[in-house]
């Protein structure tokens, strides 16, 4: 892997912390099949549900935001969530591409 990109999400997370926001990092830690974003891709979410970055191509971000807000509310340090192929007949969250991803959520603690 020869990364030629640098998305500066962690730098943005630090800016949010400095602005006294509660921030959760969401990181793609595993992928199976064809998934839109590679392992290590990130997004950040604050307690208001504002988010930046991505863990998929827009398929599961809304669910990740909900989970992150829940993590802040329950004051839990971390959580692992998995997403699978979406069921086309329902409006549920999932990956239309047929892949699976595991996303790790962790709060940034002061």
């Amino acid at each position, binding site marked *: *892997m*020869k990364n*030629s*990109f640098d998305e500066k999400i962690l730098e943005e997370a630090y800016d949010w*912390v400095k602005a006294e926001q509660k921030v959760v990092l969401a*990181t793609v830690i595993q992928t199976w099949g064809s998934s839109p974003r590679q392992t290590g891709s990130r997004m950040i979410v604050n307690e208001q549900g504002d988010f930046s970055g991505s863990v998929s191509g827009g398929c599961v971000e809304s669910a990740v935001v909900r989970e992150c807000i829940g993590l802040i509310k329950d004051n839990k340090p*971390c959580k692992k969530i998995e997403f699978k192929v979406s069921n086309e007949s329902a409006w549920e969250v999932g990956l239309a591409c047929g892949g699976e991803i595991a996303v790790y959520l*962790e709060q940034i*603690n002061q």
Partner: protein
Amino acid sequence: MKLETLKSIISKKKNKSEFAIVTNLSTGESEIFEKNKPFSKELEKYSVQINNFFKSKKNGVIEGTEIFIETYIRPIKVIIVGAVHIAQYLTDFAKSLNFEISIIDPRGYFASKQRFPDMNIINKWPDEAFDEIETNENTALIALTHDPKIDDPALQHALNKKFYYIGALGSKKTHTNRCERLKEAGFSDEQINSIHGPIGIKLGGKSAPEIALSIIAQLVSETYKK
């Protein structure tokens, strides 16, 4: 992740170091791994696997464990010769890419801080400038002045040091003349043909931002071929 860890990751990225973040997914504890830095007690038993991820620059979970590794590689050095209009767009486009850019131009009115804020600008002739920059086969050169006095010494340096990407701006005619000069200077056909000239992939555009985009696209593509 502890705020302290986040801060030190950001500062390591800023200092262009090579490192990895190792996270225990069950506890949420993260630590920073660096070459030659001793492992903590908890991670010692995974040292072989962590080193393998680190060497192959890959991210992932160690099989059968709850240990996640994210590796950070040193940015690729890109030298731009010619602090011209295209260079301004190149530096803009490169902002979200992992390139460390230095700009060389002996002409002071081009190489000004006002034109290139927050950039490493070396206001010297290429031969002197290359004394200040460590270069090797992981370095890229973008020559933009199409003035033989400035571009040629930089191209010669890049060919001698076997840069993985060498591109030179100029028309086909300019490039033919350039190739002849390099041949006279003793470079082989193989070396000369490795130069991307005219520079960039064919997009059809002629404006400065369009040319910059075509150069960046070619640079990224060649970086993945490396």
